[in-house]
Every structure is written in structure tokens, then in C-alpha cells.
């Protein structure tokens, strides 16, 4: 299970990084979202993978690590706010610069 989980993280990271390196703002936002999924899952997993044991006192004998969960919960919400912010930034850039290239210019090609 751990290996499967690690590979999934790797795939998410790969996809996220590749999209981050593209030249269009929207694609970069997609990549950023995938990468933040990977990061959240990774942080979450630092409490180890425990099945059927939510961190609720008295429910099960052993329970999952609540601390990473609490940290990731706020990370998800803040990540959402940041995504929204980046989206608006991308919109603003597209309007001001009349194209959606990350550099705001040279829209037809990558710059070397």
C-alpha cells in the first residue's frame, strides 16, 4: 500500500511540475493545483497510512495521527484561497497584457 501511495504522489508531482513549466497561465494554475494535491497528500501521509481509525477519541482502539490532519485541513482551505487569488491574477494579466503567456509577451513561442 505504501509503495502504491508513494507512486501516486510521484505521478501527481510529475504532472504538476510539467504543467507548471508550460507557458500559459491557465495551465500553470492546473499544475499548481495538482502539485498542491501532492503536497497535501504527502503531509497527510507523514502521519502514516491508517485505515478505519479516524482520530476520534473512544471510537476505535488505535487512531490515526490527528496532527497532520489538522495541518492539512487548514492547508487545503488556504490553498483554495491562493488558487482563487492566482486565478484573478491570471485574469488581470490577460486583460492588461492582452495575452495569457506567463511572461505577458511573446505569445506565440516559448522564450529560450
Amino acid at each position, binding site marked *: 500500500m505504501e509503495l502504491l501511495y508513494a507512486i501516486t504522489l510521484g505521478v501527481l508531482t510529475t504532472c504538476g511540475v510539467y504543467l507548471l513549466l508550460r507557458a500559459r497561465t491557465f495551465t500553470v494554475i492546473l499544475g499548481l493545483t495538482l502539485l498542491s494535491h501532492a503536497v497535501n497528500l504527502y503531509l497527510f501521509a507523514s502521519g502514516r497510512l491508517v485505515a478505519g481509525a479516524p482520530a*476520534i477519541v473512544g471510537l476505535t482502539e488505535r487512531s490515526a495521527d490527528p496532527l497532520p490532519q489538522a495541518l492539512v485541513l487548514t492547508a487545503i482551505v488556504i490553498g483554495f484561497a491562493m488558487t*482563487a487569488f492566482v486565478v484573478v491574477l491570471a485574469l488581470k494579466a490577460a486583460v492588461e497584457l492582452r495575452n495569457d503567456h*506567463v511572461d505577458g509577451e511573446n505569445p506565440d513561442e516559448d522564450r529560450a
Partner: protein
Amino acid sequence: MPLALIILLPLTGACLPALMQGRSSRLLASVSAIPALLSLLLLLSWLPHVMHGGEAIVQQLTWLPSLGLNVAFRLDGLGLLFALLITGIGCLILLYARYYFEGNDASARFFTLILLFMSVMLGIVLSENLLFLLVFWELTSLISFLLIGFNTDRQAARLGARMSLVITGGGGLALLGGLVLLGQAAGGYDLSTVLAAGDRIRSHEHYGLMLNLILLGAFTKSAQFPFHLWLPHAMTAPTPVSAYLHSATMVKAGLFLLARLHPALGDTPEWFHLVTLTGMLTLMVGAFVAMFMHDMKGLLAYSTVSHLGLIMLLIGLGTPMALAAALFHLVCHALFKAPLFMMAGYVDRATGTRDMRQINGMWRFMPAMMVLTGISAAAMAGLPLMSGYLSKKMLFTESLLVTAPDWAVVVIPAWVTLAALFSVAYSIRIFHNVFFNGRPINLPIWPPKGPRPAALSPIALLALATLLVGLMPEHVYSALVQPAFAAARQTLVDPYDFSTLGGSVPMIMSLAALAGGALFYAMRDPLFRLHASLPEVDAKEIFDWIMRSAIALSQRRVFQLENGSLQRYLVFIMVTVLVLVGLELLAVDRWDGGVALAPLDPLTVLAAILLCLAALGVVVFHHYRLPALLLLGVTGLFVTVTFARFSAPDLALTQLMVEVMAVVIMMLALSFLPQTSPQGSTSFRMGRDLAIAVLMGIGVTAFSFAILTRPQETISGFFLANSVPGGGGTNVVNVILVDFRGFDTLGEITVLGIAALAVFAFTRDLHLKERVVDTHPGHWVAEPHPIMLSTVARLVLPIALLVSAYIFLRGHNLPGGGFIAGLITAVALTLQYMAGGLVWAQERMLSPFRPLIGAGILIAVLTGLGSWLFGYPFLTSAHGHVSLPLIGEFELATAMLFDLGVYATVVGSTLLILANLGKLMTVAGPGKEIG
């Protein structure tokens, strides 16, 4: 009495002329002379102590002991000799500048800078700590830059200043490296430590490197070949600057440093070869070029280069009294060179030129100056009874004492005799050519008007000093040079026996030089013609070429790194991360940490595969933005499932809500952006990016696997144990959020609120429609809102709100809480916007979102502050049981009030973001503000 005062006096005194801009040079000079004279008097008060062989005085103030950096000053014979030269000649320069700058309104800057320069020069010679010395050293480079470029409106002055800064500043960098190595080898940066550790330093493995770096610093500062270049170009400075910096003080700093560090570094074959050979080359090049200079100051500059080479040669020589001869000549040189510069300055002002082919026969116009300058020129030439005569004889005597290596035994005496010959020739030239040699030719100012008698006083005083040294060398030697020599050798030394100078061989060498020099000067006209026909090697061209290439190279490199492409910067960051983390990961010997792996089950495998496929799908279809966005949503849903699968119901709920909102927002954004991405990248770039991405993925897989299979050490036991007794809730995640780590959460909801406000601010004046609509016409179609959706949405709203209230209330004990409840409320309200349209929803909804955010944060803060009322720390929670009819008994904690703040902030922020993004796309265009 603190030694620091000697440095601080001119330093603070420098403020005085700065505050008196535009006043007469007479007033400025008098004011500036006060701190300089006080410093000189302080130094003189130490003279008896030092003269009688007293111990070196070290005063220190601990500053940064961990870095080996103390504010420490040291006064011994060597420091005192240099300090006296700096302040003594400095005072005379101030006197000279009073006349030189007469009628010049801008001289206040000169007086300020010259006092600052005096202060930092004193810092060099009085520092006990090498790092401190280095700071002063660099300051002299900086201030000399300002002084050389004093006439800022002249290009030659600016270029000369830049050249000197590049060369001496570059040498300063080398010196920094050398001194750090030296301090490491010696075990400390204090001179007392360093000077005592000579044997350890000389046998240190980095001795060669250290020596080369320190010599580089000293050679550049003291204008040794081939770094001498900056000195002649620094002659664009006003003459008082040349007379002070470039004859008496700054160029002597390198010599001081080598004399100072001699016990630590000196008397090795490397030292002998590097220092002596450099000195010999500089001596000869300077003397030769000086002879053929037609510019008065140029001649003096090259003769200074030559004399610096001579002193350098003596420092390297290693014979018993060579260092004494070096220090003695250094004093003589400062005394006779400064008045020659002063003379050149007066003649320049009187005639309007410095070209000796025009300036002739000045004796008619300035007879007094002729007599005084004659003394200095005779000393430079080394005529009998003059100071230079003695120091030259000392040089010859020492050169004959060299016994090894074989070549040096013959070459050095012959070499110094030849150089002395040239020096006789140029000394005669500067005197004879200026004051005699026929009549003036085409002077720009006619008739030349010599300076008034009072203006000659600094020249007269220096000429007198030169005579005194020549007449009673023993006294000068025993008072000044011998203590300095002893301090430089770190041993007791015998007095110099001047009667030994009468030996026959040095006498013959001396006479040969005199006769040869006179003959050489007599034949000057054919020699000048011969010299003019030689191809000219202009070292400045070479220097400029090096500078241009260096600048062009760095510009190219900067452009390669920083060409404005964000993609490129990101690649650099990624590759850096890959390399740094990769190197660490490669060093891991076992990936599998040994903890037993959990078994796989088919459903999980399937979910993982689907998750990966969805993520890959986003990449594959990223050119078609809508499908890619939908696949992104699928990815998010499977992430939600993952949280649920591994015992994190709170996370699963949060992720689900966030995913819905995020997709809605991106959909909104997409409606303004192009629907497809162009195939922009070349296949090379795609391959490169793919390689980086895959390597990143492999790295993440490897280290997460390594972490997951290692035993866990967690602090969560505390939270699990104290959640019920301390926080009054069984849902530990929620208790952590609102209680144990409540302060973190407070920060996080504040960030959330700020992000929402930023979105609000950005969308406020964003007019998308007018500007984007043209790029894809036909895209903006106002479709009616689907009737079924809007009907169902209205029905769903109260249910959803009820659910969110339930989730909120139970959150302390079961999955839920402020974050999740807030998101559920927001999603439910978003649904109304989507189903009925912005205008419809706006009419039916209270939308003070910004006040809601503020209220949420306020509630959270006030809850925290409330605990102060009861004498507890910020955000301490209290709890108790409450029972309500129908709902039953539940636990009520102050943490719940805090959670209410979280709830309000989340609802307010989310809806503020959504409503404002939605507002952009209304057909009616941006209406009044929402939120």
C-alpha cells in the same frame, strides 16, 4: 589615553568643513587643521615611550569575539612612524591646500575627504586586528576614488578614479582572502597572535596561496608593476591629493602591510623571489618611463612608482639591515616627493600647463621656489649630504650583502645602480627643465605669476626636514626608524652605523650613477627622439580592453540567467531543487525502512489507478482547457476518496467542498481566457521539462516511500490523551484546530480573509467584457438559467444550511467543525448564484461579505482575549455540558465560539471570491460592488 582618539579626531573633524560649504579655503584649512594637529600632538606624546624601546601598546574593546573581531588598536614603533608621516605631512598638505584652492568655492569637499582619508589611513597603521585593518584598507580605496575623481566634470578624472578603484579594490578582495587564511593559520586575527605564530604560518599548507593573495593586495595598493598603471592615471586628481595620497600615504600602505607582516610571512625563498623581483621590475620600469615623461606630474608619478619599487625590493631582500634601509628611504621619499608635487601644482596654476616642453626658465618668475625645490630634487637624485644620498648608499650596501641565490649576487647591485642612474637623470630633468633650459614656450598663461612667499611655507618646511635628515641621520634614525625597524622585526636591533656607508664599492656605484645620470640628461634630445620613434605600448588600452571584456562577459552571463522569462527561472529553481535534494537522496542506503507494508486491496488499487489516470489526463489534454479542468476535478475527487480511505473524514469533507468551489472558480476564469492553449513548445523543451518533471516525481516517490516505511515518532499522543479532558471534544482534529493550535488557526483564517480581500480589490476595476469579448466573438451568449436546477437549488438551500449547522455543532466531537460547515454553507449559496444568476441571487441575499470576514476574525480574537478576563493565557478554552430539548445533550466549549469565528470567515471569504468573480461575467457588465 585611548588610541582610538587619534583616529576619531580627524573622523569627527571631517564634519566641520562639510558644514561650511562655499567658505574660503583659508577658513576651511584652519578649521581642518585643528583635528589634524591634535592627532599629531597625541602621537608625539607617545614618541618618548616608543623611542625608549617601550612595549607595543595594545588597547582593545571586545566586540564580536565569536568572529575574532575586536575593536583593537596597537601603537608601536612601526605604527608610530607611519602615523607621524600621515598626520605630519597631512597638516602640511592642509596648509598647501589653503593656497592651492584659493578662490575655489568647492574646496569644502576636498577638506572633508582629506580628513576622512587621514582618519582611515591612521586606522590602517594603528589597527591591532587584521580584519579591522582590512576595513580601513578598503575605505582608503573608496575615499581615494572620490579624491581622484574630485573634478567630477572631467572625464579623465572619472576614468582615472575608476581605474584606481578597480585595481586597488580588486587587490583588497585578494587581501581579504589572504588575511582570512592567515588568521586561520595563526589561530587569531590579532596582530599579537599573528606575529608570534610565524613558524606555524610559514609551514602551513596554504602558505603559498596566503602569501600570493596578501602580496597581491599590497602590490596593487603600492602600485607595483604591472599594477602601477593606476598611479599615473590618478594624477588627474588635484595636486594636494597627489602630493598626499600618491607620494606620502596611500601608496605606502602596501609597504606598511608587508613590513608589518614581515615576522609572520617573511624571509622565505617565496617571499624573497616575489617581493624582490616585483620590486626590481617596478624600480626599473618606473625610473625608465619617468625619464621620458613630458608631463610634470606624470614624471613624478612614475618616479614614485620607481621609489615604491625600490622600497619593495629592500623589504624582500632579507639582509639584516635591509628593512631598516627600506624604512629610512620611505621617510626620505615622503619628505622630498611631497614638495616636488606641491611645486608642480604651483607651476601648473601659474602657467596653465604641465608640459615640460613648454615650461622652461621658471627661475625668473619663482626664484624662491627654485631654491627650495632644488633641495628636494637633489635629495631625490641622491646628491651628497642629502637624505637621498644616505638612503641610496644604504641600498647599495645592502645589495652587495646579498649572498644567495647566485644570480642575485651580481644582478641586484648592477640593477640598482642602473636604476639610480635613471633616477639621477629624471631628478635633474624635473629641476633643470622647469627652472632653466631656455625660455618658456607658448604658455597658456602669460606672464606666469609665482605663488606668494607665504604659500611656499609647506615646501620650505619639508625642504628643511629633508636637510635635517641629511645632516643628522643618526638622530632621525634612532628616534623614528630604529623603533619602527625593531617593531617590524619583532626583535631588539642594533643602531645603524652610518660610518659603514663610507665603503668604497657603494661610493663607486653612487658616483657612477651620478655621472651616468648627468650624461644621460645631457644627451636627452637624441634620446627623446629615439624614444618617440619606439612603438608605444599603452597599458591603459590593455586595461580598458580587459574592463570592456569583463563587463560584456558579465552582461552576457546575467542575461543568460535573467532574461525576463519566468519559465526559465522556474526551470532553474526546479533543477536546483533536483540537484540539492537528489544528492542527499542518493546518499540514502536503504529505501525500505523496514516497517511492514499494509496489504493492498483491489478497490484502493483501482482508485489509485484512476487518480493517476486523471492526473495524466490533465497533462495530455491541457491544450483543451475545459476537458483538462474536468479531469482536474476528477483528480480532486479521488484525493478526497484517499483522505476518506485513510481515516481522515474531516479532510475528506473539506477537500470535497473545496474541490467544488475551485472548479467553479476556474470555470468562471476559463470563460474569459482562450479555450485552448497553443502548441507553443518545441519538442526539445517538452522533452527537457518532461525529464525534469519525471525526475521530480521519482524523487518524491522515493522519499515518501522511505518515510512511510520508517517507524513514526509523533507528538500526537499528547493530543489524543488530552483532547477530552483538556479540550472537551472527542474529535481530536477539530480540538487541535480550535483549541491546542488555536493561535495557528487564527493566523490561517486571517490569511484566508486577506486573500479574499485581494481578490475583491483586483476584480473591482477589472473590466473584462469590453476588452476580452472581441478576442473570441460569439462566446458570450446569455442563456436562460435551467429551470429544473433553479427549482431544485431553492429546495436544497434550507436543507444544506441545516446540514451545515449540524456539522458545525457536532464538529467538536465528530467530523465537522467551522471550516467544513463554512464551506458547506458557501457551496449551498454558490448553488443559488449558479442556478438563479447573480442578479437574481443578489436581490434575495444579504451580501455584506467583507463585514462578515471582519466579524469572523473579531469573534475569534475576542474569544481568545476572553480568557484574559479570567487570568488565563490567550485562547485558553473552557467547556461544559449543555442539554437542549430534541437535540439532546452536547458539549459546549468556548472553543465553539472560536469555531463560529472560523465559520464566519470561511463563508465570507469564499463567497466574496465567488461573487466577485461571477460579477465579472454577468451580461449586464460589472455592476455595483458585491461584498
